């Protein structure tokens, strides 16, 4: 347990000391929320900024996937670069190092997500919905992103390829969720916008849990269903990650 905390804390320190990356992971989503806060029909949501309220969950969740890049950078450096010999020379298995790294990455993503939420709520008058739903969705989606990071780490040849995959996945999810361009009104587009990706599921779960559900036709029941789907996807990803980690020699 002591080794877990030693390694976990060192990773958290190292993640947050990558100042450039941390700033980008905060400034960009917050900037996008700020821009979107100027748009939207102000009469739709009493007392809150509709633009910030609908975009805050979207970008908070989207950037959980962009966060994967920072975890992958450290994983490749430590376990596929020369550092791996130094770490392997220590009297510990690889799991002793990888597990705290994984948890640290999850915690890091959570913290980034919480900061985005707080800035949006405090400065942009974004509506949170049900706080518990928001926290649970953030926990699940950040865990999902961490599992995907680990899978990319196991299968990608090098960091360049891995980082490329991060961008493909992150932008792909945003596009397919309709966060970047309107998807239109076709049945497929509506489905994708509401349920088609983890981002869409998460965003809707948060929005359905509060006042905004009156505009969207959802409700707490739908929130719970969305959370359940997210949890199931994450569980499957977790199992696949564990199986892959046992089979693939790093």
């Amino acid at each position, binding site marked *: 347990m*002591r*080794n877990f905390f*030693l390694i976990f804390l*060192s990773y958290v*320190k*190292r993640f947050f*000391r*990558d100042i450039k990356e941390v700033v980008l992971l905060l400034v960009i989503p917050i900037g996008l929320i700020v821009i979107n806060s100027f748009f939207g029909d102000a009469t739709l949501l009493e007392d809150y900024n509709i633009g910030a309220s609908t975009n805050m969950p979207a970008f908070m969740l989207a950037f959980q996937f962009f966060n994967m890049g920072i975890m992958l950078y450290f994983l490749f450096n430590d376990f596929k670069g*020369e*550092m791996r*010999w*130094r770490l*392997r*020379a*220590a*009297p*510990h*298995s690889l799991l002793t190092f990888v597990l705290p790294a994984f948890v640290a990455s999850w915690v890091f993503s959570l913290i980034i997500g919480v900061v985005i939420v707080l800035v949006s709520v405090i400065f942009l008058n974004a509506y949170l919905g049900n706080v518990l739903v928001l926290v649970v969705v953030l926990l699940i989606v950040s865990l999902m992103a961490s599992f995907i990071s680990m899978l990319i780490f196991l299968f990608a040849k090098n960091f360049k390829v891995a980082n490329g995959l991060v961008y493909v996945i992150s932008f792909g999810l945003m596009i397919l969720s309709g966060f970047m361009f309107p998807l239109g009104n076709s049945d497929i587009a509506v489905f994708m916008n509401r349920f088609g990706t983890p981002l869409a599921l998460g965003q809707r779960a948060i929005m359905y849990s509060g006042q905004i559900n009156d505009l969207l036709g959802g409700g707490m029941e739908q929130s719970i269903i969305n959370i359940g789907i997210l949890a199931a996807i994450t569980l499957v990803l977790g199992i696949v990650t564990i199986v892959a980690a046992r089979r693939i020699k790093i």
Partner: protein
Amino acid sequence: MIATMKNIVKRYGDTLALDHLNLNVVEGEILGLLGSNGAGKTTAIRTLCGLIDADSGEATVLGHKQSVRNLEARRDIGLVTQEITVFKDLNATENLQYFGGLYGLRGAELAANVKEMLEFVGLTDRAKKRPGTFSGGMQRRLNIACALVHKPKLVIMDEPTVGIDPQSRNHILESVKDIAKNGTTVIYTTHYMEEVQAICDRISIMDSGRVIAEGSLEELVGRIQHEQKVFMTAIAPSDVLTTDIKAISGVKHVEAIGNQYIITSATGSGNVSRIMEIAGRHGGVSSFTEEKPNLEAVFLTLTGKKLRDDGEV
């Protein structure tokens, strides 16, 4: 013996990296592992550390049979990697705390060891700075400190002075001697002859995945010292001088180019004084040096190769 390697074979695809390697390490010594690039030094020490498994053969360290699964066997080993492997995002103290913590150090003992290591490698005034702000030599010193912080019984240093300035190199070499004085066994791999000559008690020469010679510097030199060369600048060179020198018993060859003479004799022939006497009778000499084989010559004789990458067979 603190460590042994018996008939170790390791292949990477079609490449035979270790070819029935046999190596013994005596407790308390500084063992130099000398070989050109590709000789198998790094593979040998990774096998000894249990970082990779050999295809066959047995490696033991401190009584433990080494393998990638035997984690306990690594507790008393410190590995100084060839590349600098410190965390650039953590400062010097944090790096030492991390690596010391991995080996079970805690609290006051960890703090004391960290402080001692910073002093040992001369980085006390850089304790709170990150390695990215260090010179190459300082980074190498921190690299060494991270391997020593837990006070291992066996330290393996894989070319620890590559690419650094002479001052830092000397500091590191002195540090290695200090480590050994405290009873720690050191395996020091390098392709710099002068380092091995400066600090090692015993030298193992590796080539093509096996140890081809081992012993002290004197023992290794003695193996090939069957000839002795004298370089002389004669004041009055002549054919008679050349003939008289050739007539000395034990002289194998005389090469005369202008007033420069290179005289090759059998070792132990005691010809140096005779050559001096004859040269004196023919007008004397302006310079006279005796060449003794060095480790470079040993290596060249045994392997047919020069030690550095810029040398050729």
